[in-house]
Protein backbone atom coordinates (compact mmCIF):
# COMPACT_ATOMS: atom_id res chain seq x y z
CA UNK A 1 0.00 0.00 0.00
CA UNK A 2 2.81 2.44 -0.67
CA UNK A 3 1.86 5.98 -1.69
CA UNK A 4 -1.64 5.54 -0.31
CA UNK A 5 -1.19 8.45 2.06
CA UNK A 6 0.85 10.83 -0.06
CA UNK A 7 -0.88 13.65 1.77
CA UNK A 8 -0.20 14.63 5.39
CA UNK A 9 -3.70 14.00 6.68
CA UNK A 10 -2.92 15.84 9.94
CA UNK A 11 -3.04 13.90 13.21
CA UNK A 12 -5.63 16.25 14.68
CA UNK A 13 -7.71 16.12 11.51
CA UNK A 14 -7.86 12.32 11.83
CA UNK A 15 -8.98 12.40 15.47
CA UNK A 16 -11.57 15.13 15.01
CA UNK A 17 -13.32 13.03 12.38
CA UNK A 18 -14.24 10.53 15.07
CA UNK A 19 -15.84 13.30 17.13
CA UNK A 20 -17.90 14.69 14.22
CA UNK A 21 -19.11 11.17 13.42
CA UNK A 22 -21.75 11.22 16.16
CA UNK A 23 -22.09 9.56 19.57
CA UNK A 24 -20.30 6.37 18.53
CA UNK A 25 -17.45 8.50 17.21
CA UNK A 26 -17.21 10.49 20.43
CA UNK A 27 -16.91 7.16 22.24
CA UNK A 28 -14.01 6.17 19.96
CA UNK A 29 -12.26 9.49 20.61
CA UNK A 30 -12.87 9.14 24.36
CA UNK A 31 -11.40 5.64 24.26
CA UNK A 32 -8.34 6.91 22.41
CA UNK A 33 -7.74 9.66 24.98
CA UNK A 34 -8.45 7.27 27.89
CA UNK A 35 -5.88 4.80 26.59
CA UNK A 36 -3.34 7.57 26.18
CA UNK A 37 -3.96 8.65 29.79
CA UNK A 38 -3.74 5.13 31.13
CA UNK A 39 -0.56 4.41 29.23
CA UNK A 40 1.00 7.58 30.67
CA UNK A 41 0.29 6.45 34.25
CA UNK A 42 1.42 2.94 33.49
CA UNK A 43 4.73 4.15 32.17
CA UNK A 44 5.51 6.40 35.10
CA UNK A 45 6.24 3.72 37.75
CA UNK A 46 8.39 1.86 35.26
CA UNK A 47 10.35 5.04 34.57
CA UNK A 48 10.92 5.65 38.29
CA UNK A 49 12.04 2.14 38.90
Amino acid at each position, binding site marked *: *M*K*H*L*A*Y*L*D*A*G*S*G*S*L*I*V*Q*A*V*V*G*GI*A*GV*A*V*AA*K*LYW*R*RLVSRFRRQPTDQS
Partner: protein
Amino acid sequence: MAIPHLRDAAQPVPTGTDLRPEPGSFRDPANQVFHAGQDVLRALDETAAAHWRALAGSDFFPPLLATGKVCGTEELPPGTAPERWAAMLRHERIPFVSHPYEWSFAMLRDAALLHLEILRAALPAGFTTKDGSAYNLQWRGTDPIFIDVGSFAPLREGEPWAGYRQFCQTLLYPLLLNAHIGVDFQPWLRARIDGIEPDQMGRLFRGTRRLLPGVLTHVHLHGSVQRRNAGRSTAVVREQLRDAGYSRELALATVRGMEKLVRRLDHQPPESHWVDYQRTCGYSEDDRATKERFVTAALASAPRRRLVLDLGANDGRYARLAARHAGYVVAVEQDPAVVDRLYRTLRGEGERRILPLVMDLADPSPGGGWRGRERASFAARTGADTVLALALVHHLAIGRNVPLPEVISCLTALAAPGGRLVVEFVHPEDPMARRLLANKPDGIFPDYRRDAFEALLAAHGTVEQRLELPSGSRTLYQVALGG
Protein backbone atom coordinates in the same frame (compact mmCIF):
# COMPACT_ATOMS: atom_id res chain seq x y z
CA MET B 1 -15.90 -0.64 -20.38
CA ALA B 2 -17.97 1.86 -22.35
CA ILE B 3 -16.81 5.31 -21.42
CA PRO B 4 -19.27 8.15 -21.77
CA HIS B 5 -18.22 11.68 -22.71
CA LEU B 6 -14.83 10.52 -23.92
CA ARG B 7 -13.77 12.54 -26.91
CA ASP B 8 -12.82 10.49 -29.92
CA ALA B 9 -11.84 7.40 -27.99
CA ALA B 10 -10.70 5.61 -31.13
CA GLN B 11 -7.91 8.12 -31.67
CA PRO B 12 -4.39 6.64 -31.54
CA VAL B 13 -2.24 7.57 -28.60
CA PRO B 14 0.81 9.73 -29.11
CA THR B 15 3.67 8.48 -26.98
CA GLY B 16 7.21 9.29 -25.90
CA THR B 17 8.33 12.79 -26.72
CA ASP B 18 4.79 14.00 -27.45
CA LEU B 19 3.89 13.83 -23.78
CA ARG B 20 3.82 17.14 -21.92
CA PRO B 21 3.55 16.81 -18.12
CA GLU B 22 0.64 18.75 -16.63
CA PRO B 23 2.29 21.32 -14.29
CA GLY B 24 -0.49 20.91 -11.71
CA SER B 25 0.00 17.15 -11.36
CA PHE B 26 2.97 16.26 -9.19
CA ARG B 27 1.87 15.99 -5.58
CA ASP B 28 0.93 12.30 -5.68
CA PRO B 29 3.97 10.39 -6.96
CA ALA B 30 1.78 7.36 -7.78
CA ASN B 31 0.36 9.00 -10.89
CA GLN B 32 1.04 11.87 -13.28
CA VAL B 33 -1.16 13.64 -15.82
CA PHE B 34 0.23 14.35 -19.28
CA HIS B 35 -1.08 16.18 -22.32
CA ALA B 36 -0.55 14.82 -25.81
CA GLY B 37 -2.15 16.91 -28.50
CA GLN B 38 -5.80 17.19 -27.45
CA ASP B 39 -5.57 14.10 -25.24
CA VAL B 40 -5.44 14.15 -21.45
CA LEU B 41 -3.56 11.08 -20.21
CA ARG B 42 -2.76 9.76 -16.75
CA ALA B 43 0.24 7.52 -16.15
CA LEU B 44 -0.01 5.14 -13.17
CA ASP B 45 2.69 3.33 -11.24
CA GLU B 46 2.24 -0.34 -10.40
CA THR B 47 0.29 0.24 -7.21
CA ALA B 48 -1.94 2.88 -8.80
CA ALA B 49 -2.54 0.61 -11.80
CA ALA B 50 -3.68 -2.19 -9.48
CA HIS B 51 -5.98 0.29 -7.70
CA TRP B 52 -7.39 1.47 -11.03
CA ARG B 53 -8.20 -2.08 -12.11
CA ALA B 54 -9.88 -2.81 -8.79
CA LEU B 55 -11.83 0.43 -9.18
CA ALA B 56 -12.90 -0.33 -12.76
CA GLY B 57 -14.11 -3.75 -11.59
CA SER B 58 -16.01 -2.39 -8.59
CA ASP B 59 -19.77 -1.93 -8.41
CA PHE B 60 -19.80 1.71 -7.37
CA PHE B 61 -17.43 3.23 -9.94
CA PRO B 62 -19.00 2.40 -13.35
CA PRO B 63 -22.32 4.13 -12.45
CA LEU B 64 -20.36 7.28 -11.48
CA LEU B 65 -18.71 7.19 -14.91
CA ALA B 66 -21.98 6.47 -16.70
CA THR B 67 -23.72 9.43 -15.08
CA GLY B 68 -20.78 11.71 -15.85
CA LYS B 69 -20.09 12.43 -12.18
CA VAL B 70 -16.54 11.19 -12.66
CA CYS B 71 -14.74 12.26 -15.83
CA GLY B 72 -14.81 9.71 -18.68
CA THR B 73 -11.78 7.40 -18.37
CA GLU B 74 -10.48 4.40 -20.26
CA GLU B 75 -7.32 2.35 -19.94
CA LEU B 76 -5.07 2.38 -22.98
CA PRO B 77 -3.55 -0.84 -24.32
CA PRO B 78 -0.43 -2.23 -22.58
CA GLY B 79 2.78 -0.73 -23.89
CA THR B 80 1.43 2.82 -24.23
CA ALA B 81 2.72 3.90 -20.83
CA PRO B 82 6.09 5.63 -20.87
CA GLU B 83 9.07 4.21 -18.99
CA ARG B 84 8.73 3.92 -15.19
CA TRP B 85 4.90 3.83 -15.46
CA ALA B 86 2.84 0.65 -15.42
CA ALA B 87 -0.37 1.78 -17.10
CA MET B 88 -1.87 4.69 -18.95
CA LEU B 89 -5.41 6.12 -18.81
CA ARG B 90 -7.08 8.50 -21.20
CA HIS B 91 -9.53 11.01 -19.75
CA GLU B 92 -12.41 12.93 -21.16
CA ARG B 93 -11.25 16.42 -22.05
CA ILE B 94 -12.74 19.13 -19.82
CA PRO B 95 -14.10 21.87 -22.11
CA PHE B 96 -12.54 24.70 -20.07
CA VAL B 97 -10.39 24.24 -16.97
CA SER B 98 -11.37 26.59 -14.14
CA HIS B 99 -10.18 27.08 -10.58
CA PRO B 100 -12.29 27.12 -7.38
CA TYR B 101 -11.56 30.83 -6.86
CA GLU B 102 -13.39 31.46 -10.12
CA TRP B 103 -16.55 29.73 -8.93
CA SER B 104 -19.55 31.24 -7.18
CA PHE B 105 -20.86 30.13 -3.79
CA ALA B 106 -23.45 27.71 -5.18
CA MET B 107 -20.84 26.28 -7.56
CA LEU B 108 -18.40 25.59 -4.73
CA ARG B 109 -21.22 24.06 -2.68
CA ASP B 110 -22.33 21.77 -5.52
CA ALA B 111 -18.72 20.77 -6.11
CA ALA B 112 -18.33 19.98 -2.38
CA LEU B 113 -21.54 17.93 -2.39
CA LEU B 114 -20.36 15.91 -5.39
CA HIS B 115 -17.04 15.17 -3.67
CA LEU B 116 -18.90 13.92 -0.59
CA GLU B 117 -21.40 11.94 -2.67
CA ILE B 118 -18.53 10.16 -4.42
CA LEU B 119 -16.82 9.39 -1.13
CA ARG B 120 -20.13 8.11 0.30
CA ALA B 121 -20.47 5.79 -2.69
CA ALA B 122 -16.85 4.63 -2.43
CA LEU B 123 -16.67 3.81 1.31
CA PRO B 124 -19.16 0.90 1.44
CA ALA B 125 -17.37 -0.61 -1.57
CA GLY B 126 -14.06 -0.53 0.32
CA PHE B 127 -12.58 2.50 -1.45
CA THR B 128 -11.65 5.99 -0.35
CA THR B 129 -10.12 9.07 -1.91
CA LYS B 130 -6.55 9.90 -0.94
CA ASP B 131 -7.33 13.61 -0.82
CA GLY B 132 -10.27 15.99 -0.57
CA SER B 133 -9.30 19.03 -2.56
CA ALA B 134 -11.57 21.45 -4.41
CA TYR B 135 -9.10 21.01 -7.28
CA ASN B 136 -10.40 17.43 -7.68
CA LEU B 137 -13.42 18.97 -9.37
CA GLN B 138 -14.11 20.63 -12.69
CA TRP B 139 -17.19 21.57 -14.70
CA ARG B 140 -19.10 20.48 -17.74
CA GLY B 141 -21.26 23.60 -18.04
CA THR B 142 -23.16 23.70 -14.75
CA ASP B 143 -22.45 20.05 -13.90
CA PRO B 144 -19.56 19.43 -11.54
CA ILE B 145 -17.27 16.52 -12.47
CA PHE B 146 -14.79 14.66 -10.26
CA ILE B 147 -11.60 14.51 -12.30
CA ASP B 148 -8.98 12.98 -10.01
CA VAL B 149 -9.38 9.30 -10.87
CA GLY B 150 -5.89 8.74 -9.43
CA SER B 151 -7.23 9.71 -6.02
CA PHE B 152 -9.26 6.50 -5.53
CA ALA B 153 -7.53 3.88 -3.41
CA PRO B 154 -8.59 0.88 -1.32
CA LEU B 155 -9.83 1.81 2.11
CA ARG B 156 -7.80 0.60 5.07
CA GLU B 157 -10.23 -0.55 7.71
CA GLY B 158 -10.30 1.63 10.80
CA GLU B 159 -8.82 4.73 9.17
CA PRO B 160 -10.52 8.10 8.88
CA TRP B 161 -10.53 10.04 5.59
CA ALA B 162 -7.07 11.34 4.70
CA GLY B 163 -8.66 14.13 2.64
CA TYR B 164 -10.74 15.63 5.47
CA ARG B 165 -8.34 18.46 6.28
CA GLN B 166 -8.03 19.38 2.60
CA PHE B 167 -11.79 19.25 2.21
CA CYS B 168 -12.21 21.62 5.16
CA GLN B 169 -9.55 24.04 3.94
CA THR B 170 -10.51 24.24 0.28
CA LEU B 171 -14.26 23.55 0.35
CA LEU B 172 -15.99 23.64 3.74
CA TYR B 173 -14.28 26.72 5.25
CA PRO B 174 -14.74 28.90 2.16
CA LEU B 175 -18.42 27.94 2.21
CA LEU B 176 -18.75 28.71 5.94
CA LEU B 177 -17.10 32.09 5.35
CA ASN B 178 -19.65 33.02 2.69
CA ALA B 179 -22.72 31.45 4.28
CA HIS B 180 -22.16 32.55 7.88
CA ILE B 181 -20.49 35.95 7.62
CA GLY B 182 -21.10 36.98 4.02
CA VAL B 183 -17.41 37.25 3.12
CA ASP B 184 -16.61 36.27 -0.48
CA PHE B 185 -14.32 33.24 -0.40
CA GLN B 186 -12.72 33.73 -3.83
CA PRO B 187 -9.80 36.01 -2.80
CA TRP B 188 -8.91 33.59 0.06
CA LEU B 189 -8.69 30.58 -2.23
CA ARG B 190 -6.84 32.51 -4.90
CA ALA B 191 -4.24 33.64 -2.39
CA ARG B 192 -3.66 30.23 -0.78
CA ILE B 193 -3.52 27.12 -2.88
CA ASP B 194 -3.99 24.92 0.20
CA GLY B 195 -7.02 26.88 1.35
CA ILE B 196 -7.81 28.43 4.73
CA GLU B 197 -6.16 27.02 7.89
CA PRO B 198 -8.39 26.12 10.87
CA ASP B 199 -6.55 28.65 13.06
CA GLN B 200 -7.25 31.48 10.62
CA MET B 201 -10.90 30.46 10.48
CA GLY B 202 -11.06 30.31 14.28
CA ARG B 203 -10.07 33.97 14.52
CA LEU B 204 -12.98 34.94 12.27
CA PHE B 205 -15.51 32.87 14.19
CA ARG B 206 -15.27 34.12 17.77
CA GLY B 207 -18.06 34.85 20.30
CA THR B 208 -21.54 33.72 19.32
CA ARG B 209 -20.33 32.87 15.82
CA ARG B 210 -18.86 29.74 17.37
CA LEU B 211 -22.40 28.42 17.61
CA LEU B 212 -23.12 28.67 13.89
CA PRO B 213 -23.60 25.29 12.17
CA GLY B 214 -20.37 23.40 11.64
CA VAL B 215 -18.14 25.99 13.33
CA LEU B 216 -17.61 24.50 16.79
CA THR B 217 -16.57 21.08 15.49
CA HIS B 218 -15.04 21.51 12.03
CA VAL B 219 -13.30 24.79 12.87
CA HIS B 220 -12.58 25.23 16.61
CA LEU B 221 -12.36 21.63 17.75
CA HIS B 222 -10.46 20.73 14.58
CA GLY B 223 -7.94 23.54 15.18
CA SER B 224 -7.53 22.72 18.84
CA VAL B 225 -7.10 18.92 18.35
CA GLN B 226 -4.64 19.69 15.56
CA ARG B 227 -2.54 21.92 17.84
CA ARG B 228 -2.53 19.36 20.65
CA ASN B 229 -1.50 16.53 18.34
CA ALA B 230 0.97 18.43 16.21
CA GLY B 231 3.86 16.38 17.63
CA ARG B 232 2.26 12.98 16.98
CA SER B 233 2.73 11.25 13.66
CA THR B 234 -0.32 10.37 11.60
CA ALA B 235 0.85 6.71 11.56
CA VAL B 236 0.67 6.53 15.37
CA VAL B 237 -2.70 8.30 15.50
CA ARG B 238 -4.12 6.00 12.79
CA GLU B 239 -3.04 3.02 14.88
CA GLN B 240 -4.57 4.48 18.05
CA LEU B 241 -7.87 5.20 16.26
CA ARG B 242 -8.00 1.69 14.84
CA ASP B 243 -7.37 0.23 18.32
CA ALA B 244 -10.09 2.45 19.76
CA GLY B 245 -12.59 1.00 17.30
CA TYR B 246 -12.83 3.54 14.47
CA SER B 247 -14.82 1.89 11.69
CA ARG B 248 -16.03 2.31 8.13
CA GLU B 249 -19.53 3.00 9.50
CA LEU B 250 -18.13 5.92 11.49
CA ALA B 251 -16.39 7.27 8.40
CA LEU B 252 -19.71 7.04 6.56
CA ALA B 253 -21.53 8.81 9.38
CA THR B 254 -18.97 11.63 9.20
CA VAL B 255 -19.47 12.00 5.45
CA ARG B 256 -23.26 12.01 5.84
CA GLY B 257 -22.99 14.63 8.57
CA MET B 258 -20.83 16.83 6.35
CA GLU B 259 -23.25 16.43 3.45
CA LYS B 260 -26.10 17.52 5.69
CA LEU B 261 -24.12 20.53 6.88
CA VAL B 262 -23.00 21.61 3.39
CA ARG B 263 -26.52 21.24 2.00
CA ARG B 264 -27.83 23.55 4.74
CA LEU B 265 -25.31 26.29 3.99
CA ASP B 266 -26.68 29.03 1.81
CA HIS B 267 -25.76 32.53 0.89
CA GLN B 268 -28.17 35.18 -0.33
CA PRO B 269 -25.94 38.03 -1.42
CA PRO B 270 -27.10 41.60 -0.95
CA GLU B 271 -28.43 43.26 -4.11
CA SER B 272 -25.47 44.77 -5.91
CA HIS B 273 -25.27 47.33 -8.69
CA TRP B 274 -24.49 44.62 -11.22
CA VAL B 275 -27.34 42.28 -10.26
CA ASP B 276 -29.83 44.75 -11.74
CA TYR B 277 -27.52 46.00 -14.48
CA GLN B 278 -29.37 44.67 -17.51
CA ARG B 279 -32.52 46.49 -16.47
CA THR B 280 -30.82 49.74 -15.54
CA CYS B 281 -28.13 49.98 -18.19
CA GLY B 282 -30.17 52.21 -20.46
CA TYR B 283 -30.84 50.19 -23.61
CA SER B 284 -33.99 50.87 -25.58
CA GLU B 285 -35.90 47.82 -26.82
CA ASP B 286 -34.87 48.79 -30.35
CA ASP B 287 -31.18 48.91 -29.35
CA ARG B 288 -31.41 45.58 -27.63
CA ALA B 289 -33.09 43.81 -30.55
CA THR B 290 -30.60 45.29 -33.03
CA LYS B 291 -27.68 44.25 -30.82
CA GLU B 292 -29.00 40.70 -30.50
CA ARG B 293 -29.37 40.39 -34.28
CA PHE B 294 -25.82 41.66 -34.80
CA VAL B 295 -24.32 39.30 -32.22
CA THR B 296 -26.32 36.33 -33.54
CA ALA B 297 -25.14 36.95 -37.09
CA ALA B 298 -21.53 37.30 -35.91
CA LEU B 299 -21.71 34.01 -33.98
CA ALA B 300 -23.56 32.11 -36.69
CA SER B 301 -21.07 33.10 -39.36
CA ALA B 302 -17.92 32.39 -37.31
CA PRO B 303 -15.60 29.94 -39.08
CA ARG B 304 -14.87 28.02 -35.85
CA ARG B 305 -17.37 27.63 -33.05
CA ARG B 306 -15.77 25.49 -30.40
CA LEU B 307 -15.35 28.01 -27.60
CA VAL B 308 -16.92 31.42 -27.06
CA LEU B 309 -15.78 33.71 -24.26
CA ASP B 310 -18.44 36.15 -23.06
CA LEU B 311 -16.66 38.85 -21.06
CA GLY B 312 -18.83 40.88 -18.68
CA ALA B 313 -21.60 38.32 -19.10
CA ASN B 314 -23.95 39.77 -16.44
CA ASP B 315 -27.27 37.89 -16.63
CA GLY B 316 -26.01 35.63 -19.42
CA ARG B 317 -28.29 36.98 -22.16
CA TYR B 318 -25.53 36.85 -24.79
CA ALA B 319 -23.92 33.71 -23.38
CA ARG B 320 -27.22 31.92 -23.95
CA LEU B 321 -27.37 33.33 -27.43
CA ALA B 322 -23.80 32.15 -28.06
CA ALA B 323 -24.61 28.65 -26.77
CA ARG B 324 -27.00 28.23 -29.70
CA HIS B 325 -24.10 28.63 -32.11
CA ALA B 326 -21.04 27.32 -30.25
CA GLY B 327 -19.88 24.14 -28.59
CA TYR B 328 -19.11 25.75 -25.24
CA VAL B 329 -19.44 29.19 -23.71
CA VAL B 330 -17.46 30.59 -20.78
CA ALA B 331 -19.35 33.50 -19.24
CA VAL B 332 -17.03 35.71 -17.17
CA GLU B 333 -18.40 38.26 -14.73
CA GLN B 334 -16.69 40.05 -11.86
CA ASP B 335 -19.52 40.14 -9.33
CA PRO B 336 -19.82 36.84 -7.40
CA ALA B 337 -23.50 37.57 -6.67
CA VAL B 338 -24.29 37.94 -10.38
CA VAL B 339 -22.41 34.75 -11.25
CA ASP B 340 -24.16 32.88 -8.46
CA ARG B 341 -27.56 33.95 -9.76
CA LEU B 342 -26.58 33.03 -13.33
CA TYR B 343 -25.26 29.62 -12.25
CA ARG B 344 -28.43 28.77 -10.30
CA THR B 345 -30.62 29.86 -13.23
CA LEU B 346 -28.61 27.95 -15.85
CA ARG B 347 -28.50 24.86 -13.67
CA GLY B 348 -32.24 25.07 -13.13
CA GLU B 349 -32.74 25.31 -16.87
CA GLY B 350 -30.53 22.26 -17.43
CA GLU B 351 -28.08 24.29 -19.55
CA ARG B 352 -24.90 22.22 -19.86
CA ARG B 353 -22.84 24.26 -22.30
CA ILE B 354 -22.35 27.52 -20.42
CA LEU B 355 -19.76 27.79 -17.65
CA PRO B 356 -20.20 30.93 -15.54
CA LEU B 357 -17.03 32.18 -13.83
CA VAL B 358 -16.19 34.92 -11.33
CA MET B 359 -13.30 37.06 -12.46
CA ASP B 360 -12.40 40.72 -12.69
CA LEU B 361 -10.90 41.36 -16.12
CA ALA B 362 -8.82 44.18 -14.67
CA ASP B 363 -7.34 41.66 -12.22
CA PRO B 364 -7.55 38.26 -13.95
CA SER B 365 -6.52 34.99 -12.30
CA PRO B 366 -2.71 34.84 -12.22
CA GLY B 367 -0.68 31.66 -12.35
CA GLY B 368 -0.67 30.06 -8.88
CA GLY B 369 0.92 27.37 -6.74
CA TRP B 370 4.40 25.99 -7.33
CA ARG B 371 6.44 28.36 -9.53
CA GLY B 372 3.20 30.05 -10.50
CA ARG B 373 2.51 27.20 -12.89
CA GLU B 374 0.59 24.68 -10.82
CA ARG B 375 -2.62 26.59 -11.52
CA ALA B 376 -2.57 28.14 -14.96
CA SER B 377 -3.40 31.81 -15.32
CA PHE B 378 -6.62 32.77 -17.07
CA ALA B 379 -4.67 34.11 -20.04
CA ALA B 380 -2.94 30.73 -20.47
CA ARG B 381 -6.25 28.85 -20.51
CA THR B 382 -8.16 30.87 -23.06
CA GLY B 383 -7.80 30.82 -26.83
CA ALA B 384 -11.47 31.31 -27.69
CA ASP B 385 -12.79 31.10 -31.23
CA THR B 386 -14.95 34.14 -30.54
CA VAL B 387 -14.56 36.73 -27.79
CA LEU B 388 -17.67 38.74 -26.92
CA ALA B 389 -16.94 42.07 -25.22
CA LEU B 390 -20.32 43.76 -25.07
CA ALA B 391 -20.81 46.89 -22.95
CA LEU B 392 -17.41 46.18 -21.41
CA VAL B 393 -14.74 48.44 -22.94
CA HIS B 394 -15.94 51.65 -21.24
CA HIS B 395 -15.87 49.96 -17.82
CA LEU B 396 -12.21 49.06 -18.31
CA ALA B 397 -11.09 52.20 -20.17
CA ILE B 398 -12.97 54.78 -18.10
CA GLY B 399 -13.97 52.92 -14.93
CA ARG B 400 -10.57 51.30 -14.38
CA ASN B 401 -8.31 53.80 -16.23
CA VAL B 402 -6.88 51.10 -18.55
CA PRO B 403 -5.49 52.76 -21.70
CA LEU B 404 -7.64 51.91 -24.74
CA PRO B 405 -4.76 50.22 -26.66
CA GLU B 406 -4.22 47.97 -23.63
CA VAL B 407 -7.91 47.06 -23.49
CA ILE B 408 -7.92 46.03 -27.16
CA SER B 409 -4.64 44.08 -26.78
CA CYS B 410 -6.09 42.22 -23.81
CA LEU B 411 -9.33 41.31 -25.61
CA THR B 412 -7.55 40.12 -28.76
CA ALA B 413 -5.03 38.10 -26.73
CA LEU B 414 -7.87 36.07 -25.24
CA ALA B 415 -8.84 34.81 -28.71
CA ALA B 416 -7.12 31.96 -30.53
CA PRO B 417 -5.05 32.94 -33.60
CA GLY B 418 -7.47 33.70 -36.40
CA GLY B 419 -10.34 34.08 -33.92
CA ARG B 420 -13.06 36.66 -33.90
CA LEU B 421 -13.82 39.61 -31.64
CA VAL B 422 -17.33 41.01 -31.27
CA VAL B 423 -16.98 44.26 -29.37
CA GLU B 424 -19.20 47.19 -28.43
CA PHE B 425 -17.90 50.74 -28.17
CA VAL B 426 -19.93 53.03 -25.98
CA HIS B 427 -19.43 56.58 -27.25
CA PRO B 428 -18.24 59.20 -24.74
CA GLU B 429 -21.60 61.00 -25.02
CA ASP B 430 -23.63 57.88 -24.09
CA PRO B 431 -25.40 58.25 -20.72
CA MET B 432 -23.53 55.25 -19.22
CA ALA B 433 -20.14 56.56 -20.38
CA ARG B 434 -21.00 60.00 -19.07
CA ARG B 435 -21.94 58.55 -15.72
CA LEU B 436 -18.49 56.90 -15.51
CA LEU B 437 -16.72 60.03 -16.80
CA ALA B 438 -18.49 62.17 -14.21
CA ASN B 439 -16.39 60.45 -11.50
CA LYS B 440 -13.11 61.37 -13.21
CA PRO B 441 -11.45 64.76 -13.82
CA ASP B 442 -12.41 66.50 -17.07
CA GLY B 443 -10.31 65.64 -20.11
CA ILE B 444 -8.52 62.70 -18.47
CA PHE B 445 -9.31 60.33 -21.37
CA PRO B 446 -8.68 62.34 -24.55
CA ASP B 447 -8.14 59.13 -26.55
CA TYR B 448 -11.46 57.59 -25.62
CA ARG B 449 -12.96 58.29 -29.06
CA ARG B 450 -14.61 56.19 -31.72
CA ASP B 451 -12.00 56.98 -34.39
CA ALA B 452 -9.16 56.02 -32.02
CA PHE B 453 -10.99 52.81 -31.12
CA GLU B 454 -11.54 51.91 -34.79
CA ALA B 455 -7.86 52.56 -35.60
CA LEU B 456 -6.89 50.13 -32.82
CA LEU B 457 -9.26 47.47 -34.10
CA ALA B 458 -7.85 47.86 -37.61
CA ALA B 459 -4.35 47.32 -36.20
CA HIS B 460 -5.41 43.96 -34.77
CA GLY B 461 -7.45 42.58 -37.66
CA THR B 462 -10.13 43.28 -40.22
CA VAL B 463 -13.38 44.95 -39.23
CA GLU B 464 -15.89 42.77 -41.08
CA GLN B 465 -19.08 44.33 -39.77
CA ARG B 466 -19.91 47.59 -38.07
CA LEU B 467 -23.28 48.74 -36.82
CA GLU B 468 -24.37 51.79 -34.87
CA LEU B 469 -27.29 51.06 -32.55
CA PRO B 470 -30.50 53.07 -33.17
CA SER B 471 -29.85 55.30 -30.13
CA GLY B 472 -26.73 56.51 -31.91
CA SER B 473 -24.43 56.34 -28.89
CA ARG B 474 -23.08 52.78 -29.21
CA THR B 475 -21.40 50.93 -32.08
CA LEU B 476 -20.86 47.20 -32.55
CA TYR B 477 -17.94 45.67 -34.42
CA GLN B 478 -17.19 42.22 -35.73
CA VAL B 479 -13.45 41.82 -36.17
CA ALA B 480 -11.53 38.96 -37.79
CA LEU B 481 -8.32 38.95 -35.76
CA GLY B 482 -4.83 38.71 -37.21
CA GLY B 483 -3.78 39.03 -40.80
